[in-house]
């Protein structure tokens, strides 16, 4: 029997334990089943991922940016923040620009779960974000300001700059030195930096973290059902990562 067959899958585990079917309340198979079939140490070293239909039938696509130029500027900026190196892929290869684009088309972009009522005032830094602009507004403006800075400093498009020039512009944003309309540039930069890391490390179901390579670089195993059998281990556990997508069949 292969290592994999011996281990009950997450779905089977949840089904048998009654959680998936909702029979848990007042019941409790789980106590007996915990620990069953789970390896003492899990070592699946290679890069293989479970193929799901999703990869085949749902390619990445853009939902927010309409102009290629804007999407490419965003892509280059994220790659400067999280570049490809000898450890592994950078933001572009991980799909981070698609992650950000897709998020901007949803609740994240429209600040749907945030307080957006006026009046609006410039506050102290300790009072947090106070602009009337949504993230969608902020990215649209931010990306066009990156381009404007490139043109005015180097007479070139942002995407045609060399890395150091891009970094110089991003650093000015980071320091709050670029004048944006109704929004501090350091705020835009912080948001971009945070979203880049989110796209690198969120579950691949969000279109970033391609092939779970963000997780692989960090030795993070993603969505595992239990560490009960290895929690007391003195050795570092290298575990092949699992995505939530593996639960969708």
């Amino acid at each position, binding site marked *: 029997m292969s290592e994999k067959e011996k281990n009950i899958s997450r779905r089977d585990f*949840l089904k048998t*334990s009654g*959680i*998936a079917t909702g029979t*848990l*309340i*007042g*019941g*409790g198979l*789980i*106590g007996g089943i*915990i620990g069953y079939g789970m390896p003492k140490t899990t070592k699946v070293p290679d890069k293989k991922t479970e193929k799901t239909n999703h990869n085949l039938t749902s390619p990445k696509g853009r939902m927010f940016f309409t102009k290629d130029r804007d999407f490419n500027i965003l892509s280059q900026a994220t790659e*400067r*923040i*999280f*570049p490809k*190196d000898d450890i592994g892929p950078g933001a572009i290869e991980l799909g981070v620009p698609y992650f950000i684009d897709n998020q901007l088309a949803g*609740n994240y972009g429209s*600040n749907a*779960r945030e*307080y*957006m*009522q006026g*009046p609006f*005032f410039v506050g*102290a*830094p*300790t*009072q*947090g*974000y*106070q602009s009337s602009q949504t993230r969608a507004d902020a990215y649209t403006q931010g990306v066009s300001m990156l381009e404007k800075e490139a043109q005015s400093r180097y007479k070139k498009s942002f995407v045609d700059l060399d890395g150091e020039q891009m*970094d110089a512009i*991003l650093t000015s944003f980071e320091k709050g030195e670029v004048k944006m309309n109704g929004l501090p540039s350091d705020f835009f930069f912080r948001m971009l*930096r945070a979203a880049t*890391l*989110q796209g*690198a*490390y*969120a*579950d691949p179901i*969000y279109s970033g973290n391609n092939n779970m390579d*963000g997780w692989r*670089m*960090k*030795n*993070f*195993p*993603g969505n*595992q059902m*239990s*560490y*009960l059998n290895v*929690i*007391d*281990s003195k050795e*570092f*556990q290298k575990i092949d990562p699992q995505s*939530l997508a593996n*639960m969708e069949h």
Partner: protein
Amino acid sequence: MARTMEKVDVVTVGVGWTGGIVAAECTKAGLKVVGLERGQERGTTDFLHIHDEYRYAIRYELMQNVAKETVTFQNTRKMKALPMRQMGSFLLGEGLGGAGTHWNGWTYRFLPYDFEIKTLTEKKYGKNKVPKDYLLQDWGLTYDDLEPYYDKFEKTAGISGENKNPYGGKRSSEYPTPPMVKTPILERFEKATQKMGMKPYMLPAATISTTYTNPDGSKINGCQYCGYCERFGCEYGAKASPEVTVVPTALKTGNYDLRFNANVVEILKQGNKVTGVKYIDTLSLEEIIQPADAVVLTSYVLNNAKLLMVSKIGEQYDPDTGRGTLGKNYCYQLNAGSTGFFDEQMNVFMGAGALGMTLDDWNGDNFDHSDVNFIHGSGIWITQSGNRPIAKNPVTPDVPSWGPEFKKASIYNFTRTLYVGGQGATMPYKENYMSLDDTYKDAYGLPLLRLTYNFTEQDRNLFKFSNDKTEEIMKEMGAKTVVPENVIEEYDIVPYQTTHNTGGTIMGVDRDKSVVNTYLQHWDADNLFVVGAGNFNHNSGYNPTGTVGALAYRCADGIIKYSKSGGSLV
């Protein structure tokens, strides 16, 4: 015109730990209880796909929708208070279970010192130890008065722990379940701190070590150390939370009616009694009146205070005159700590919310304060609660925060850093309080609650002291580089710190100095009860929920007594 429902014995506003405990006890005693909850129903079966850091830990899916309601904030009265537009400093609960669904499960008792802090501090250090702008006061009951209720809450939640803390108050029984697994990371902390002469013990945990059936017959499963705990619901029913304990207990009596999408906007009062509450169905926007013999505010620290303010019950605290008690003694907590960078990789991505060790050598009045310029202290802790890759990108201060060096270092350090924290007490201060905002409104037209809050001199001194302790411990643990937290200056509402807000509806024996009595019964209406960490007169160096749970059991006792005899319980 509002529609009026049939009168019930008890209505609770909100269904988290406090609302759930009150419901369980009152329904068991035969009272008819309605639980009004502005959020949705949810439970274990909703958490099957919960191992999603982005959705739950970063975008706060299980928490309060601040598009509808938030607070405004200013550091001082001289500023203009502005809305907290995005959640940050604290994460508010919403939906069945409240914050108890996605809490971490550290379940402490406060020290005997906490309940008599003013008396004991003055006795030992004299009347001038604490400047007069710090509004220190005793709580009106002692640790021993509360002990049976602590015991009850711990048994309901099946808390895992070991009775090895020499500084704790007397316990009437052992922890209901044995401590969690002592992992190599915890052993490292234990060894170092013992060598330094401190007394570490396993952190009392609501992420319980083994399957357990509580006295009400609810079953809590053994924790799987899955690493997605704080900010997540537990897919195994292994984290003690209201929806796997007190809520099913109340439901099985047949006396409990739970209503969701029910946002309470007013406590109705006539003369010296309340008659019920008015709520809005958040889907249809219909106004509905729920009459009740007793109203219990269980809507967390902030909304408990806000509902009293908008309903004009009690006197608003005024920092100029010192008059009024409502909104007074708002406190928070300090987060000292040190990150240690190591060479070897450790299993930091595994763990549970409350898998940890802790010590009280520098907490409360467990050490001599004669020569320090603060009182109280911090609980010092280490946990292995499951580091996740979006939130955890540790780098030393010499590394930039983005670009190639950052990427390399943050990836390398992810499995090679540990953190020792110090959870610092805060003392009430004249200028730190809650009131209603005069500009901003919630989705139902009510003013937002306004927080006026800043760190104090006492806070800065205590913080520094605790930070140093964590640094010494981390060095002893063998880290090659130790980076302590930056010193605190102004309180900043942006970065997450802790959801341990306290005060505003303080308890006591003197109606001029408290909002509720020691049964959490309102001084101005004896059929109105207000329970939660809002009852704390100051905040201790521990997480609040052990004490909140104990107070909720005490409150339930009070409500049941009141339902029989009426009148003031004190």
